[in-house]
Structures are given as C-alpha cells and as structure tokens.
C-alpha cells in the first residue's frame, strides 16, 4: 500500500530508527519487509538504506582485504606443540601430585644411573635411537584461498565498488593504460573472451599492491582478468616442479557476496579470472587464456 502524505513522515522516522537493526539482520521478517517496501517508495529512505548498505559492505571488504602474515599460522602451531602436555604439576589436584612427583623422581633416578654407567666406561649393548636434530617443520605456505583473494580483492574494489566496468575504453586507450610492458595483453584476452567484450584495461593498486586489470562485460555480467607480480605467494601445494605446470585453481569465495575465482601462475606472476558465482564463462576463459598468457607473462620485462 502506498503511504499517504500523512503516513510518510511516520514511515520515514520508523525506517530511520530501525535502519541499523535492519542492516544487522536483527529485525523480524515482517518488519524488515515493511522497511524494504517503504524504502522502495521513499527516495530519501531508499538513499539512506543504499548508502549504509554500501558502507557496511565497504567496511567488510576493507577489513577482510588484510592478509594474514605469512608466518603467523606456523608460529602458532609451533607454540602449541611446544606446550603440548605442558601442564604444570602445580595445576594438578593434590591427589595426583604425589603420583606425578614419584614418576618424575623415578625418571631422574634412571637417568642418573645411566649417566654414571656411561661415565664409568660401561656402554649399553644397544643404544636407543635418538635423533638430536630438532624436528623439522615446514612453515605452511600462504593458504591458496588467501592467494586467490588477492585477485578477488582487486575485482571487488575496482569492478564492483568503483564500477570501472561501466566505462567503455577503446583498444588504443586500453593499450596505453596498461603500458608498453603489457602491450598485447588486451588482444590476447580478447581473442579468447567469447561473448564477453573487454570494456576497460588499466593499471591499478589495491592495498598497496599493483595490478593490471582487464574488465570484460556481457550485458550485466562482469568478469575481471587480473595480473599481479608475485610477492612470494604460490598456488603450489605439493612437490610440483614448476609454477607453469600447476593447473588453474578454482575456488568460490565470499566477499561482499560470493564469487568464483580461478587462478594460475608463472614463476613471476599470478593471474586471476574472477566472476560472479556460477558464471560458466569463468572456467572457459581461464582454460583458454592460461597457456598463451603464461607465455606472454614470461616475456614481460622483469
């Protein structure tokens, strides 16, 4: 029902009072629905709701763009293992303390007896295997999902929040924007883009990291092809000989909404194809461009 002029102020007041709870999904369905109906009819409240929703998504994106320090997970795993079974005897209940103390005394006595025998020249017939080397632990690599988020972060920031895909650049403009190092990249991607058209190509930066970003459109559907130089990341998870031999990795990731991200790598570069979820062309474009783009990126100056 369209609010009357008499109802409208009350509707606006109520909507604006409840907008924070609405955004936090804290309202019952019928009230949330009433707010949506009112916002759809009232330009002021519609703008407020739109702005606040956009800001909440912007906050989430900005905070989640921060990547986990490479070594932190390894540090935590190490410190947990170093404290494995490390409960102090003083934390035990009194009735257990005696047992643990007795066991500890027995161990000390055995060790002392062994030491005395060893120093006096008596050697045991068999030496128990003991590896004095500390256990080697590989520092876990950056999780693959975090590597894929690098490309997703640029897509969301540039193509979604800043709507760079709304522009229409000419081929000359795009070649100029990506620079001489990447001259030919637009043509390469265009030859495999199918029904998608490249509408923008530029260099950009997200969270201090430079990217070369191509935006492809087919109607409302947007796909980004993003390239960035590696900063120690890899998609390799096992004993794979070279970066070029790693097949493209695909994941569905949540940011402001769900996206499909495909990535492949060379020795020096990471390349990403990012789309809304369930975009069938994502996989097709990734598979088509990967071999030629690997060769292309191999020729890019260091």
């Amino acid at each position, binding site marked *: 029902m369209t609010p009357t002029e008499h109802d409208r102020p009350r509707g606006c007041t109520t909507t604006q009072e409840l907008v924070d709870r609405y955004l936090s999904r804290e309202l019952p369905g019928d009230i949330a629905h009433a707010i949506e109906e009112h916002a759809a009819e009232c330009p002021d409240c519609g703008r407020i709701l739109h702005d606040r*929703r956009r800001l909440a998504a912007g906050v989430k994106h900005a905070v989640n763009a921060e990547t986990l320090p490479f070594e932190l997970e390894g540090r935590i795993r190490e410190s947990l293992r170093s404290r494995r079974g490390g409960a102090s005897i003083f934390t035990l209940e009194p009735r257990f303390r005696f047992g643990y103390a007795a066991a500890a005394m027995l161990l000390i006595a055995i060790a002392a007896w062994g030491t005395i025998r060893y120093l006096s020249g008596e050697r045991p017939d068999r030496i128990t295997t003991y590896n004095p080397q500390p256990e080697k632990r590989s520092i876990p690599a950056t999780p693959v999902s975090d590597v894929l988020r690098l490309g997703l972060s640029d897509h969301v920031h540039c193509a979604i929040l800043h709507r760079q895909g709304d522009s229409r650049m000419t081929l000359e403009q795009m070649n100029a924007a990506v620079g001489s190092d990447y001259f030919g990249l637009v043509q390469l991607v265009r030859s495999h883009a199918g029904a998608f058209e490249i509408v923008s190509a530029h260099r950009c930066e997200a969270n201090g990291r430079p990217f070369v970003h191509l935006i492809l459109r087919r109607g409302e559907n947007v796909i980004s092809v993003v390239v960035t130089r590696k900063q120690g990341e890899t998609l390799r998870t096992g004993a794979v000989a070279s970066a070029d031999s790693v097949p493209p990795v695909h994941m569905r990731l949540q940011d402001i*909404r769900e996206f499909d991200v495909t990535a492949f790598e060379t020795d020096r570069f990471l390349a990403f194809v990012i789309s809304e979820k369930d975009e069938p062309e994502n996989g097709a474009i990734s598979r088509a461009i990967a071999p030629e783009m690997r060769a292309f990126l191999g020729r890019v100056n260091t």
Partner: protein
Amino acid sequence: MEQPSGNNSANAGNCVKVVERTFVPNIRNRAAGGTFSGSIHAVASHSISVEDFETEALPYLNDIFRTASRITGDKSSAQDLVQDVYLQAWKSFDRFQLGTNCRAWLFKILFNKLHHYHRARYNSKLVKDAEEFLREVAAYEPPVPEQIRDEEVLMALDKIPADYREVILLADVQEFAYKEIAEILGIPIGTVMSRISRGRKLLRIELADIARGYGIRNMKEGGR
C-alpha cells in the same frame, strides 16, 4: 529491495566436531547442563590432541587476526596478541562448551585480552567526547562518498573510539548477532545497539571528512 544477505547462524562457526576427552569424576560437563565443580587439570587436557584443537580453532585465524589488527592498529602487536589468544584457548580448551560457537569463544578470549592489556585504547574520555560530538551533530547526516577506497574506510575506522570500532567489526565484518556481541564483550545488548548506531554514524562522518580532505579520486583519470 532485499534484506542483506548473510546469515548469523551460518556464520556462527559452530564447533560440532566432538573431541574425545576425559573428565575426572568431580567435574560435570557444562554441555550437559551442569557446571564445573572442580578445577580442570592435566588429565583432561592430555586426552585432547593439539591437532584436534587446531582443526577446531585455526579456521578462524584470519578473522581473529584482522580484528586484532584493526583494534591494536599494529600488525606486530596483533600477531603477538593472536598467538596469546590461541595459547589461552588451547590451555582452556577443556572448558570450551562442546557444540557451541567456537568462533565466538575465540573472539571472547581476544576481547578479554584486548581489554586487559590495551586499556589505554579504551579511553572513556574519547567515548564521552564522541557522544558529546554526536549530540551536537544529531541532525547532520553526511552522504556516503560515491567512491569508497579501502584505505579511506580503514582510516575512518581507525579514527573512531575503540569501544565503537569493536562493535562495528563484530557486527559488520564478522556478522555476529547482537546477542553474541553482548556475550563476547560482556556488555548489555542495549549497549551493543547504541554503540553500533553511534559507531556507524561516527564512521560516516569521518569518512565524509576524509573524502572532503583528500578529494574523491577520479579512478578513471587519476588511477588509484
């Protein structure tokens, strides 16, 4: 228009994996409705492997780190803090209530530590100043800039008092329900609601100020 996507329960990160553990007879499991009547001791912790704990708790490492980083404003301190959180969580994993929200439990430990070690950041004078400022600008509703850069959002977020920043991080980034935020921070739910409302308004004001001060960049011409 649609209600915002996302579901609090879907984000709850319930720890449903049952970890085998041994309790001594004088301890009643809280999950069974009782309370702990005795001290937790080593017998209990020895039957839970580090690997079990890691499986339960490490998936939330990114969330915990990002939140710590935004509150402390320093990645290095945040790393130390997060390591402390996980060690504390491991030491008290016996007391974790099985089948409840592991993510919320880790956040509760994080904020306990933050409030304990970083009291200076929770400056009540800053909060009073902010409240006074909000009263003065009650009618002012700045528009959200058309183009929002991550750097500007983070700068604006860092400028608001930590009491407000933490509820925004928990509500808008981690998508906890108000009730969960109240439990994590140990404050009444009404306080959560008022802090979210005020915090978001302060954030809009700061962001508008930053956008004015720096000029809204023309992405197409100026690059980023």
